[in-house]
């Protein structure tokens, strides 16, 4: 198996705070790789650097065999690196269908097409409705994104990420703020994607992480203190001390 994403010696400092501290990490093609860690461990900063919104101070990010460290956000997306946001980040005044259609459009060449109506273009609407169906929103296509429930908006996030036909998904806390029912539905959706896509999953919900991940990396103060299978992580004494201990209370 080859590496889909390789991070080497990544450093990001905000003033005196080192949010990412000489982090090296690799994600194998086809795996679900979870990144966990307590609040402030630098998980969202890491996602930001992977997508290109945050520029690292040092280190390299390689994706699909090329160095993407200096590439802007939209070009990384074009290479097949898609993300979902921690805080729901959809186009609020667009319908669910139009949200996904825009993501489809982004990967059908340039959009300097000034005349033909986009809302009835079968090349956009067809795929958009398929992706909505994939995440279970087929019957909600005509609803404005702002009128969808929180859980549905998170599903829409995933549909938009999928619509860019990525090789790899970066999921920043897809279960954030969800009740148990919505969470379970999201786990089901992600399970279906498993194997088709490489996924980097940042998540607080331990049930979801252990249900989905092939490998887990534990981040503490911007450093990876352990990487391994869920079983190894569960039994790692450092991890139990630094992180899981707080959750299970038996450290």
């Amino acid at each position, binding site marked *: 198996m080859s590496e889909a994403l390789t991070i080497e010696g990544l450093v990001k400092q905000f003033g005196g705070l080192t949010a990412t501290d000489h982090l090296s990490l690799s994600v194998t093609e086809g795996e679900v790789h979870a990144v966990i860690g307590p609040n402030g461990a630098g998980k969202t900063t890491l996602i930001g650097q992977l997508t290109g919104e945050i520029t690292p101070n040092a280190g390299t990010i390689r994706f699909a065999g090329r160095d993407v460290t200096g590439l*802007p956000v*939209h070009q990384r997306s074009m290479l097949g690196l898609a993300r979902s946001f921690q805080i729901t980040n959809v186009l609020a005044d667009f319908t669910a269908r*139009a949200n996904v259609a825009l993501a489809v459009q982004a990967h059908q060449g340039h959009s300097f097409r000034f005349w033909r109506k986009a809302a009835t273009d079968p090349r956009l609407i067809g795929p958009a409705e398929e992706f909505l169906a994939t995440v279970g929103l087929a019957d909600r296509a005509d609803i404005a994104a702002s009128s969808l429930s929180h859980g549905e908006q998170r599903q829409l996030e995933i549909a938009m990420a999928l619509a860019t036909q990525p090789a790899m998904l970066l999921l920043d806390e897809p279960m954030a703020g969800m009740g148990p029912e919505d969470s379970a539905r999201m786990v089901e959706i992600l399970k279906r994607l498993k194997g088709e896509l490489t996924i980097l999953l940042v998540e607080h919900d331990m049930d979801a992480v252990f249900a989905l991940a092939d490998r887990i990396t534990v981040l503490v103060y911007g450093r990876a203190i352990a990487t391994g299978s869920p079983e190894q992580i569960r039994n790692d004494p450092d991890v139990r001390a630094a992180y899981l201990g707080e959750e299970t209370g038996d450290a």
Partner: protein
Amino acid sequence: MQMIRFGFIALVMLALAAVPAVATAIDEPFYISLFTRMLVLAIAASSLNLVLGYGGMVSFGHAAYLGLGSYVVGVGFYHAANDGMDWALNGWLHLALTIIIPGLAALLIGAISLRTRGVYFIMITLAFSQMLYYFFIGLERYGGDDGLSLWYLSDFGSVMDLNDDSQLYYLAYGLLVLVLFILYRLVNSRFGMVVRGAKSNERRLMAVGFPTYRYRLVAFGISGAICGVAGFLMANQSEFVSTSEMHWVHSGDLIVMVVLGGMGTLFGPVLGAVGFLMLEQYLPELMEGICHIIGGNSCGIAGEYWKMVFGPLLILIVLFARGGIDGLLQGKVGRNV
């Protein structure tokens, strides 16, 4: 409610089409020039609406493109009148250049301004338009501060004669309809979806792979080009070209028209321009009349204070009529606060 809205808009467009005939019939040619101005400003406000209403880019400098368009006519006239360059009066040439020059200017100004956001964007577009304003004041040759009176208008040979107020009116009407049709196609195209999406959530659009800057810039250029056409009409309507058209106050007026009519709707700016000029024209008379009715003294002054009523009226519309006049027609009376 949609029926009321479409009915009202159709009524306004039909009424506008009938203006020259009615004005001639009641022998009040003044109305033709008043309504020509409405059509001209409706085109300018519609062009601003593309960036402001659909694109979320608050340009506070659109008077510059209006002014550039009118100076194309002014400069052409100057050389035709003084240097015997008759070709410089060619109306088709004027029309082409009033698209190209303000369009290019908007691309240049946009290329720099669109790297900023929010208040900075507002201020930088304002600054650029004021730069052009002072540049033309400094151009003594073309009248400088005093402006240029046009003895000859843009020449379209035997096709039409802009000295005939009715013909100029129908040219403006035709161009407005054309502009609205082009904007309709534009905002619903793939390009339009990107521009509107960038207004709604630019970060998300970049994340799915759009280089949003390019699309916003092209929208800005198209907007400037359309606004230039309004400048071309304005010069021929007023038979005068001056720097005062480029003053920032007029950029503000255009924003008011868009907001008054309804941002991000196709016909909103048309309704806004008509409403704005109606108020500007008739509010003073109305106030003077009310003053007489309640038996006040020196009522001539009352009309001069029309802006004291106009201002609060605008505030009320912004606060309580979500979506301006167009919003009211759709029954959206929801408050914005």
